[in-house]
């Protein structure tokens, strides 16, 4: 077993490396106000974070990650551009797997920089890859922006697009909605009757806060949706082709460029990916050995909306990601009260690095 002292020593070493790369060390409180995290993640966060409370401040959570408090701190009084590093415990409630740690040390590196997003993506990835170079790890990369761009470009209503966008991070639900919007599964009997106006009037009084007007609005929306043409099989096919891209980066790019001919909505996102590939190449990352997968990062319930990456041990598939990160521009918008800044970052788990028998 790795001792806490060794883990902290490696964490300090990693952090010093990030300081050398230009980052300022920051600290964040362990106790975070619960409302902000609940607002971001929804009720699901309660299954992943420890919640506590007192009569004065109400509900608080033991920090499940550093990103949210670091973004808040930057949005409140950070100068631009900024690079931050930190290390410390994060706490993750575990309900299904007793082998997963509920408390561990994270070391992170976050970049807030408007000038060149592709270069910032490459900077974070390359620094973390370098810190892990002594370990034989498998990298995974993806880009959430491709899928969101493709959904935004679908030839269908805004209502359907926003329903799909809302569930980008829930692939099963996303698929269910897509099947319905494309007419592959039909609506149930109750819904068909309601849309046709064949539902008998309700004999019960309306209770609660949701108003009659809201019910009418939804019925109107259901009727409008029923009258909307299905998303074409061709478009669904293109979306599937996009989601199935899984190659080394140069081949993936070739594939995506071909796809963009029929799916012009992803053209900008593909160009962004190309710029990132160039920036990674400049940083000395071997692109021919770098996997790219459009679907990567969709199930992690995170706030990433562009580049995403992770590092895994092929030897120890039982371990979670040794390092992970990505771009979270939208998070800065949500926490920034009107302000926003492109941001990208990643975290390492020194405890797992030591367990795999390597240091930086």
């Amino acid at each position, binding site marked *: 077993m790795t001792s806490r002292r060794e883990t902290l020593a490696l964490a300090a070493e990693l952090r010093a490396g990030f300081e050398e790369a230009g980052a300022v060390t920051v600290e964040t409180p362990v106790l975070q106000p619960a409302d902000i995290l609940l607002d971001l993640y929804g009720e699901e966060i309660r299954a992943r974070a420890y919640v506590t409370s007192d009569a004065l401040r109400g509900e608080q959570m033991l920090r499940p990650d550093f990103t949210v408090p670091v973004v808040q701190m930057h949005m409140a009084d950070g100068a631009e551009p900024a690079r931050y590093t930190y290390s410390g415990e994060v706490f993750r409630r575990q309900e299904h797997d007793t082998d997963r740690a509920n408390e561990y040390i994270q070391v992170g590196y976050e970049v807030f920089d408007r000038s060149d997003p592709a270069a910032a993506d490459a900077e974070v990835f390359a620094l973390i890859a370098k810190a892990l170079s002594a370990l034989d790890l498998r990298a995974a990369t993806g880009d959430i922006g491709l899928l969101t761009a493709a959904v935004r470009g679908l030839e269908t209503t805004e209502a359907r697009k926003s329903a799909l966008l809302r569930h980008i991070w829930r692939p099963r639900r996303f698929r269910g909605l897509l099947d319905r919007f494309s007419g592959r599964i039909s609506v149930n009997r109750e*819904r068909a009757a309601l849309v046709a106006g064949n539902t008998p009037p309700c004999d019960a009084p309306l*209770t609660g806060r949701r108003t009659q007007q809201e019910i009418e609005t*939804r*019925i109107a929306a259901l009727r409008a949706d029923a009258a909307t043409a299905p998303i074409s099989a061709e478009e669904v096919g293109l979306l599937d082709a996009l989601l199935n891209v899984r190659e080394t980066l140069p081949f993936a790019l070739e594939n995506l460029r071909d796809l963009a001919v029929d799916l012009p909505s992803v053209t900008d996102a593909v160009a962004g990916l190309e710029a990132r590939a160039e920036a990674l190449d400049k940083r000395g990352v071997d692109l021919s050995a770098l996997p790219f997968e459009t679907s990567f990062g969709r199930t992690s319930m995170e706030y990433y909306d562009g580049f995403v990456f992770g590092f895994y041990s092929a030897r120890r598939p039982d371990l979670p990601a040794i390092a992970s990160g990505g771009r979270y521009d939208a998070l800065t918008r949500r926490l920034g009260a009107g302000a926003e800044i492109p941001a990208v970052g990643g975290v390492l788990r020194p405890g797992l690095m030591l367990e795999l028998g390597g240091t930086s």
Partner: protein
Amino acid sequence: MTVRLGVPSKGRLMEKTFDWFAARGVTLSRSGSDREYAGMVEGIEGVSLVLLSAGEIPRELAAGRIHFGVTGTDLIQEKLPLWEHQVAPVRELGFGFADLVLAVPKAWVDVDTLDDLDAVAAAFRERHGMRLRIATKYHRLVREHLRHGGVADYALVDSQGATEGTVANETAEAIADITSSGETLRANHLKILSDGPVLRSQATLWRSRTANASDTDRRVIAGLLEKLET
């Protein structure tokens, strides 16, 4: 050491459990007055009766302080994470049937399924600036059910009793609670979502996987299980 059997300490659940065991030649009874939570076992040697609140039986089983216990599937699954590792079902007792269901106002004619609930939750949040509240005491089960169903933008609010009243009182928009006949739901103008309950529950005899047993205890356990086979 004796083999310890935990049984709900009051009400119909206790009476029906006593009847179920009596039909199999094991007579359980409360010793002394009605207020005293001590019990007696006749018909088999080496078994002692522990009268407990039904809600505490899962914890006692998991801790290994009782070898057997009678309680509902709902309470086992809500209170014990990885319950399969800690307890094993021995027999379903055929009473205490109850479903954990999600219910919404009956006047929500546009809501029948989890899919509808999710769409309504999104619209509700946009309109009211807060997430759609679901009152329940079964937080873990309900959260997992909603995750599986792909429902987002909801909040669970804790309700330890009179849960059906929370909608009319505007402390919740929907509820998740145990129901057997659905009568209370109807009286409160609520309806059950049509795509199945969160969980179907009934009174069940559980065996602890963690309780220590001496050789004598093991023989007693084998004898008890044999009696209960019928």
